[in-house]
């Protein structure tokens, strides 16, 4: 098993969105299910993994020395308006799905804070959106999926028959049960491509949380941005729903279902590494807080502005410089709601310059053993990986989160310990048993799986 030492054609260094801990893989574009099956059957000792659009922050969509399949050409999108169902290739992006179905009066069941993810990635990580408290995760809306298992066999899985255990093992299974090639999921009917949005500026964290507890049920979508620089934990709550036709002005009504967002600008390749520091983040947060109205109701916004504000700047992840960054996202049950403040205080204690800190309430968990969301609070904060003292603070927070019955989101994780993971996902053993049936040779693996002994 000897090997040329220098870089060979087809090999690529891969990282997650946080741009930390790269590893080299053989990237293999696949254009059909048959090609995926062949790639799985002939995988070498380092195994195989599907990568979507690489929007996971950590090491979920990379696998050193492995064959990494790129399914972006498996991207057909069929919309059955009568049944309200989309059948899409796993490599199709949610951006493309929205461009297809929004003009026809339908919306994806769940969208994360970016549209630049694939259907496969949405199911693999079982993503959640601002509507989790009402609609649950993306996986909860999947009616059927096609999976190439570890033997290269094609399986059709769905939540309602004898394949349901394998189905739920694949939902949130982080690509470790096989390669999905297509999925059928339901949609949300919409009258317009606009959102009707209420915005509330609140002066401290406890008040933000109180508003969310009482107000969430009135909205399909809601989330709060928290100013991590201010000790008060002040924030802005934005809530909304799809606007109805009669909420639009005459002018807006003429393009009621128009959807053609543009990526605005590309962040320059080389930001000066010191750009994002305590002062700039403080200034940004101050401006962001002041920009929001104290209390405004029924503002009409575009889908892009409401759900995906960051998609307007391509490669914004470069702003953190060459050292990369990570996103710490945990969920804790309501009984441990004070951990939100503890986490914010600890991060402020090491002057973590975070300008994208988001707080949300989750609804109930679904049957998937590795799905992240469960009832309670979820906080997500971006931090530069090189921040002194970060490792210790996050390890301490991990312990508190675990003690409280909470856990971290695998699609964001790039640093938790295997012990923390096993402790906080108690259904791991059950999941592994079914994974072993789907992939008896253990060919599907990733850097995340190796790091956490999944």
């Amino acid at each position, binding site marked *: *098993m*000897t*090997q*040329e*030492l*220098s*870089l060979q054609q087809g*090999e690529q*260094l891969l990282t997650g969105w*946080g741009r*930390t*801990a*790269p*590893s*080299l*893989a053989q990237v293999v574009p696949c254009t059909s299910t048959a090609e995926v099956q062949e790639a799985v059957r002939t995988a070498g000792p*380092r195994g195989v993994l599907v990568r979507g659009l690489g929007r996971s922050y*950590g*090491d979920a969509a990379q*696998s*050193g*020395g*492995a064959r990494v399949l790129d399914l972006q050409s498996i991207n057909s999108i069929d919309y059955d308006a009568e049944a309200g169902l989309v059948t899409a290739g796993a490599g199709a992006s949610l951006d493309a799905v929205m461009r297809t179905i929004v003009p026809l009066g339908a919306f994806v069941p769940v969208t994360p804070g970016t549209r630049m993810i694939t259907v496969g990635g949405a199911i693999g990580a079982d993503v959640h959106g601002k509507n989790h408290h009402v609609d649950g995760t993306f996986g909860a809306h999947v009616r059927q999926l096609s999976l190439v298992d570890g033997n290269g066999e094609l399986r059709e899985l769905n939540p309602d028959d004898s394949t349901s255990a394998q189905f739920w093992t694949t939902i949130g299974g982080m690509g470790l049960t096989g390669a999905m090639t297509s999925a059928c999921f339901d949609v949300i009917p919409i009258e317009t491509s606009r959102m009707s949005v209420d915005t509330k500026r609140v002066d401290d964290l406890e008040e933000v949380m109180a508003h969310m507890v009482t107000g969430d049920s009135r909205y399909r979508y809601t989330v709060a941005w928290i100013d991590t620089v201010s000790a008060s934990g002040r924030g802005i709550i934005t809530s909304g729903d799809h606007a109805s036709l009669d909420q639009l002005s005459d002018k807006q009504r003429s393009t009621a279902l128009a959807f053609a967002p543009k990526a605005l600008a590309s962040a320059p390749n080389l930001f000066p590494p010191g750009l994002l520091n305590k002062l700039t983040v403080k200034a940004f947060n101050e401006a962001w807080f002041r920009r929001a109205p104290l209390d405004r109701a029924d503002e009409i916004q575009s889908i892009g502005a409401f759900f995906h504000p960051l998609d307007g700047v391509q490669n914004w992840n470069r702003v953190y410089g060459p050292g*990369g960054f*990570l996103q710490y996202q945990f969920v804790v049950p309501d009984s441990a709601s004070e951990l939100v403040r503890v986490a914010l205080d600890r991060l402020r204690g090491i002057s973590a310059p975070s300008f994208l800190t988001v707080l949300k309430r989750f609804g109930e968990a679904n049957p998937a053993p590795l799905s992240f969301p469960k009832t309670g609070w979820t906080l997500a904060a971006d931090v530069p*990986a*090189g921040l002194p003292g*970060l*490792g210790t603070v996050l*390890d301490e927070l991990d312990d508190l989160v675990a003690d409280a019955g909470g856990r971290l989101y695998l699609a964001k994780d*790039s*640093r938790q*310990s*295997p012990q923390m993971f096993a402790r906080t996902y108690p259904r791991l053993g059950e999941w592994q048993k079914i994974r072993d049936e789907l992939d008896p040779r253990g060919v599907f693996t990733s*850097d995340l799986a*190796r*790091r956490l002994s999944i």
Partner: protein
Amino acid sequence: MNDALGEPQAILVFGGTSEIALATVRAFPRERLRRVILAARPSAGRDAAVAALTADGIAGVCAVDFQAQATSEHGALVDAIFDAGDIDVTLLAFGVLGDQLAEEASPDLAVEVATTNYTGALSVGLHVAQRLRSQGHGTLVVFSSVAGDRARRSNYIYGSTKAGLDAFGQGLGDALHGTGAKVLVVRPGFVRTKMTAGMAEAPLSVDPEAVGELVVKALRKGRETVYAPGPLRFLMAGLKTLPRPVFRKLPR
């Protein structure tokens, strides 16, 4: 796998009783370590090293037999270690200082030094490079020496082995460029260990702990070479420009 903060989970040490290497292992955060392999000749010192690291709360410390001069065995040894799991950091830390005057009188002794310091390291280094290459990540740390920067009357035999090793490390790093596998060449000056015990200290002498910290920092920053301590870089740059007749007359 290294995590996002650059913390390794598995470390392999060739020269598992080297004081510099053991101090380097200790300089990594312990929380994420789960496998530390000390490859060394069987000895009470090796057992003591395993016990000491374990007592420090480091998980998964074990020893394997390794003889630098037995190059024909290196391939199987490296494969067995990597087959059991990925290695994030490999330290090439074995070496002997030798006895210059004895070696000048008995060239066989000089060959021994060269076989351990250069040939042995070249052999292990290439076997490890193969495996880093196929796992797609990981760093090889090569302990060179400032003695290799410019040959000195008092230790040019040792120095020449380190000069060769240093060139090997740099070239290997370039060969691996962009592959996720990396090489860090470390050039310590005078470090207070059993290797230098009893010798008069040179300027900028340091303890092994200081070297360990510099190595960990350099790995985090993804550096390709590091002097230990750092200012030696400037001292050596100056020394290298000295004309031979002047250099020859320097003490030590």
